[in-house]
């Protein structure tokens, strides 16, 4: 075959599909969103024996129905796009359930290759799979691989290449015991799954009608089956007269009969399937313990934040020294070649102060994402949904809603996207509205800066408290929203708990690298541009170029308009107002803007902080103001990208506008409360 072979990776959630995909493409993959939706689309290329492959990673799904967006998307992509081969990744240690999707894929009529992943775990648990009999029964190749140990990868792609042009189909060989039929539908040599005579009769009629209307339809059998299941999409796109054939939905029958066949396959191909997975049972005894589960989870999270702050800050020190040296070197260089003072100021006070200050937070963010990746890849994340289900139920949410909230500690944008795993639209909306209160890693620089400037040895407690306040506000908001939701509270949690496994270093590396890359590119784009704009606003006014910090700059003018409104919150300083506005672009910009506003180009160094405290203190900005500022930053709009994600996920401008106003309102009220109550206490003492 010439040209590139287009391979679609598909499989159940937790089947190791992404690990396998990464094993082929490495970190060089293109991540984008599917058009119109926020489901991630991953694409990569791979070359093997002079054959170019284009690999596309489809979302993890359990079946090919059209109930969820992920399912619809995968199905459409396979049906319409020029997919040459469907690569179905199967978790061989859960063969039974994984075969359900496989049968649906085979029914589509396109070339399918099965990758029997996790063969190492199958062996470890003492199970055995007859890899010769399995392809005979399914009519498609099944290649044992281990994505984690990178075994079988070449054989798999080799099979894909051979299978792409339609050759290499394996003759079906079924025994079916006494189920062999004398009926005219002896399709057992043609189709993997042959249904009951009643259903096969109907398939015949429907197939004929479909071909009458669409003579070049490639897979009329699949369409006929879908019509019998009363699949919305197929009924809409291929309407034919069915009233005399289909009196009810045959979906349950079809599912049942597929599983009947699966049981036959498992009976013949899988041995020692009752092997216990003692390791997971033992770990689950502690992690999902009815009483101890919650404290264990809280302890794990405390540990995560402890590492994020202590080790992160330790490494950060090195980054700061490097930045200071770099800034000094650039200043020296610029001065020595007599660069225009305006340009010098732009580079030093704008770009280096803005972008550089943000880069020093890389260690904290790296550790936080590393921890989240470990929790996810080990299989613990879905246990959290179970552990939190009772508490979340009291808030009128399913335990599953806690996963987006937990991811919110990393970054709000993917967290909001993760809310799509919730089926109920109202649950989803509530989760989207409260997730932004979970303090994301971009807000961390603000806490670290202000708490180390003003709270000395209590800095860590001050920073920790932000996470608690954020969680508290989220819980309170959920409770308030519950008052407006008059439905009977229903716990609809349904989540798979995968086997615990040692996290794969490679998968973790790719995950963390993607986040770090995002962070860096944000520093290079959004924060870079915001830094320049802030610098420009502060250095120019109606009367032309002004001195930094001058009251006649555009920035000062904008800030002064809003100053009176923010005064009750202790934030009535035009510089603070300007950085808060700039912070809507991205939260880190608050820090970079403060650096630019006060002309400090290494804001995180002890010297830089001293200068900042002095400048702020001179204007009457004390620890209480700093705390109010932290609270405000915790709660108001996380970033422009979050607004975009909320718009996409809610698909409503009304709810997007509501969430913006809601966040601004909550942030303002909370900051005012902190400042006013705090002032009263200080006065009274």
């Amino acid at each position, binding site marked *: 075959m010439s040209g590139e072979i287009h391979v679609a990776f598909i499989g159940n959630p937790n089947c190791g599909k992404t690990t396998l995909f990464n094993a082929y493409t490495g970190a060089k993959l293109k991540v984008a969103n599917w058009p119109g939706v926020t489901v991630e689309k991953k694409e990569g290329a791979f070359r093997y024996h002079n054959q170019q492959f284009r690999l596309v990673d489809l979302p993890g799904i359990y079946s090919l129905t059209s109930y969820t967006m992920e399912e619809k998307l995968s199905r459409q992509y396979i049906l319409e796009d020029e997919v040459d081969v469907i690569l179905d990744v199967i978790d061989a240690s859960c063969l039974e359930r994984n075969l359900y999707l496989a049968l649906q894929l085979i029914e589509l009529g396109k070339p399918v290759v099965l990758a029997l992943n996790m063969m190492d775990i199958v062996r470890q648990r003492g199970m055995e799979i007859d890899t010769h009999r399995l392809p005979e029964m399914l009519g498609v190749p099944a290649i044992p691989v281990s994505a984690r140990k990178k075994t079988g990868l070449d054989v798999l792609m080799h099979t894909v290449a051979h299978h792409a042009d339609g050759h290499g189909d394996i003759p079906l060989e079924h025994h079916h015991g006494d189920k062999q039929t004398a009926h005219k539908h002896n399709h057992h040599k043609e189709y993997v799954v042959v249904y009951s005579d009643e259903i096969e009769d109907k398939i015949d009629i429907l197939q004929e009608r479909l071909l009458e209307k669409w003579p070049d339809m490639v897979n009329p059998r699949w369409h006929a089956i879908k019509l019998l299941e009363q699949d919305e999409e197929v009924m809409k796109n291929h309407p034919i007269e069915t009233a005399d054939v289909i009196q009810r939905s045959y979906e349950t029958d079809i599912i049942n009969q597929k599983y009947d066949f699966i049981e036959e396959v498992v009976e013949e191909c899988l041995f020692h399937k009752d092997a216990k997975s003692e390791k997971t049972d033992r770990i689950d005894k502690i992690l999902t313990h009815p009483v101890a589960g919650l404290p264990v989870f809280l302890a794990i999270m405390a540990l995560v934040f402890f590492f994020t702050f202590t080790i992160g800050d330790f490494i950060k020190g090195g980054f700061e020294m490097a930045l200071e040296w770099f800034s000094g070197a650039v200043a020296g260089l610029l001065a020595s070649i007599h660069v225009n003072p305006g340009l010098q100021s732009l580079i030093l006070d704008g770009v280096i102060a803005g972008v550089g200050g943000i880069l020093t937070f890389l260690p904290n963010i790296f550790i936080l994402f590393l921890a989240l990746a470990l929790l996810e890849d080990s299989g613990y994340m879905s246990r959290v949904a179970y552990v939190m289900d009772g508490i979340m139920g009291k808030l009128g949410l399913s335990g599953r809603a806690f996963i987006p909230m937990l991811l919110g500690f990393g970054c709000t944008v993917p967290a909001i996207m993760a809310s799509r795993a919730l089926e109920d639209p109202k649950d989803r909306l509530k989760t989207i509205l409260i997730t932004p209160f979970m303090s994301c890693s971009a807000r961390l620089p603000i806490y670290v800066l202000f708490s180390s400037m003003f709270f000395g040895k209590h800095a860590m407690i001050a920073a920790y408290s932000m996470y608690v306040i954020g969680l508290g506000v989220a819980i309170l908001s959920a409770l308030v929203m519950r008052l407006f939701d008059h439905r009977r509270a*229903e716990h609809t949690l349904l989540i798979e708990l995968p086997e615990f496994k040692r996290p794969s270093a490679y998968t973790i590396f790719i995950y963390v690298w993607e986040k770090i890359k995002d962070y860096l590119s944000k520093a290079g784009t959004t924060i870079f541009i915001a830094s320049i704009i802030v610098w420009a606003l502060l250095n120019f006014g109606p009367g032309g170029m002004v001195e930094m910090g001058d009251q006649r700059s555009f920035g000062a003018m904008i800030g002064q308009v809003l100053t009176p409104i923010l005064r009750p919150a202790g934030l009535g300083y035009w510089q603070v107002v300007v950085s808060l506005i700039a912070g809507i672009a991205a939260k880190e910009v608050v820090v970079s803007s403060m650096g630019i506003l006060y002309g400090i180009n290494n804001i995180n160094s002890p010297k830089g902080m001293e200068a900042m405290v002095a400048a702020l203190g001179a204007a009457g900005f004390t620890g209480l103001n700093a705390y109010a500022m932290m609270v405000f930053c915790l709660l108001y709009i996380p970033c422009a990208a979050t607004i975009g994600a909320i718009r996409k996920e809610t698909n409503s401008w009304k709810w997007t506008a509501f969430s913006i106003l809601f966040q601004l309102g909550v942030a303002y009220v909370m900051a005012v409360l902190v400042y006013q109550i705090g002032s009263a206490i200080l006065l009274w003492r």
Partner: protein
Amino acid sequence: MTLLQGTVGKTYQVKEIRLEEAVARRLQMLGLLSGTSIEVLNKKRSGGVIFKVRGIRYAIGKHIAQGILLGGGEA
């Protein structure tokens, strides 16, 4: 009896699923069909249940646990 009333450590057979169409379908696709063996692994006071079907563990909330009817007694 329902799954909610099942005893931890025991294996039962699914008799019927009495839930909203969409949830019932999803359970069926995961292989919870009448006659399927189901093992109860964990239960919480709030009504959460962890069970195992066809070699895979799932966690569900009270609402779904109440909708899965068990029969056939202990297998």
